[in-house]
């Protein structure tokens, strides 16, 4: 099967400043890909290029086998902008009916689409009365129109509460199962909740890392923290047995060890008679993200 989205050596400059530098990636059908980066890392720029909204300077981009922004590409790509905005004088239903007509679909599906994103009750109210989260849902409803082959979502979960966020990812899972490729951007690794197949980390316009969460963990090779609780009255003996550990005020001993040494150190600790309990704390999602998204000079 051919890739839904192919980008090779993409470079984009704004007034001499490189917003994207030599970025290459592919997204396969049914894949859920998260694009992570700080503000200004180049996420929105890349999305706008994929959608054909802005031109690029060099490289090649193919969307569903066509040029970005061409009629063929636009017919198969759906987009959810960051802070989805609509005309406040229209009702949710009228707005979705219009978007259905623009995609050449039957407008009667509007209520069904709004029900899928939990807006059935508000369908007849004007969008001007909606909350930010509700507008985001209208945005999501329009992105679901006509089974798109590529879904481009710019910070889709930023205005959603945790429950809505979970519903949102459930919708994405359904779409991906039907073969839709999904590219979504986010500020933080914690926000994508590991509900994606692949993670791309952009920083300063460059692709810093790419892979599944497990891949990124491995590549980052951040130290694993181990917290050891000594058996009653054995703390002094344990400190002597583990000279590289530091004692904190909580009465436990803490060690930071490299990934490669993890198993060896663990088997040593579990072999010690002075140990009552131990906890292994893998590097957090935030740790991994900041490891890859460090800006130059930081």
């Amino acid at each position, binding site marked *: 099967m051919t890739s839904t989205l192919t980008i090779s050596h993409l470079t984009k400059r704004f007034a001499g400043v490189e917003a994207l530098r030599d970025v290459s990636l592919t997204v396969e059908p049914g894949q859920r890909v998260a694009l992570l980066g700080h503000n200004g890392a180049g996420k929105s720029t890349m999305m*706008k290029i994929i*959608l*054909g*909204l*802005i031109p690029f300077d060099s490289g090649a981009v193919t969307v569903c086998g066509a040029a970005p922004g061409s*009629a063929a590409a*636009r*017919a198969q*790509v*759906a*987009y959810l*902008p960051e*802070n*989805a*905005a*609509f*005309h406040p*004088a*229209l009702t949710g239903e*009228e*707005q979705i*009916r*219009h*978007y259905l*007509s*623009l*995609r*050449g679909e039957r*407008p009667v599906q509007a209520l069904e689409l709004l029900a899928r994103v939990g807006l059935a009750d508000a369908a007849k109210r004007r969008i001007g009365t909606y909350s930010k989260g509700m507008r985001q849902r209208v*945005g999501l409803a*329009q992105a679901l129109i006509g089974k798109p082959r590529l879904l481009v979502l710019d910070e889709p979960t930023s205005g959603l509460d945790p429950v809505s966020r979970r519903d949102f990812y459930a919708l994405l899972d359904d779409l991906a199962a039907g073969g839709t490729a999904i590219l979504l951007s986010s500020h933080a690794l914690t926000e994508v909740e590991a509900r994606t197949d692949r993670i791309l980390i952009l920083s300063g316009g460059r692709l810093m890392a790419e892979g599944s969460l497990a891949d990124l963990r491995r590549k980052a090779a951040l130290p694993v923290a181990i917290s050891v609780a000594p058996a009653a009255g054995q703390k002094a003996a344990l400190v002597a047995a583990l000279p590289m550990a530091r004692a904190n005020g909580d009465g436990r001993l803490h060690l930071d060890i490299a990934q490669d040494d993890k198993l060896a150190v663990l088997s040593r600790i579990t072999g010690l008679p002075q140990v009552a309990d131990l906890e292994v704390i893998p590097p957090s999602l935030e740790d991994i993200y900041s490891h890859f998204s460090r800006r130059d000079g930081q």
Partner: protein
Amino acid sequence: MNRILSTATVEFRIAGRNRWVAIAVALMVVFALVLAAAGAAPTGDIGADRLSVIVASLTSLAVYLVPLIALLISFDAIAGEVERGTLPLLLTYPVSRAQVLAGKLVAHLAILTLAVCAGYGAAAGAAFWMDPASVAGLPALLRLVASSVLLGATFLGAGYALSALARRPSGAAGLAVGLWLGAVVLYDLVLLALIVSDGGGALTTQALPVALLANPADAFRLFNLAAAEASAAAGGMGGAAAAIPLWQSALSIALWPLLALVLAIAAFRKVTP
């Protein structure tokens, strides 16, 4: 075609909810009725039917009011989408920018036609009520309606072009006011000054007809006055109207909407969201 119609439906609905339809209709009806009442006096002197006299007055009214209403409706068309942040999403849909503009034009032109018909209809109704012989003025009224719609289309297109160039509603509003003042008010004043200083020389006989035809508002006036029986009632323009063949002014008012729309599409294409 469905895309254009759906856009037009949505735009019409928005204009209705923003009271633009009511404002445009009320403006035209009030001014037309005032003119119908005020224009009742000179009928006896001219010997024309009352409707023809009213049409001549309405022509002078429409040349100011129709471009104004058209620009008021259209200046926000693209700049408003940019400001609300609705444009990027719209442009990712499988719809061309020309289709988007065509949809807006259909809706806005429908509003303008509604306002023009309501206003002129009210004035005509008053004329028939006062003078049954007004039937003689019906062709002039129909010409006025048709040419008013074309004049409106021209300034709608110009409004879209300015809206795309300005990209901000406040800037677009300023440009629209400037265009209205320039095309409808100052243009004629400048021509008048030139005629006075030239004193009937080559400028008046050669350049003036071209200058009048080049301005859609003046072409509109020429067309309606040349065609009307009662051109004398309109005063100064009557002389110029007699000198320029009807087909030339008709061509000018028919070509301007197309030109304005082409300009609008070209300006819209330059907008990067």
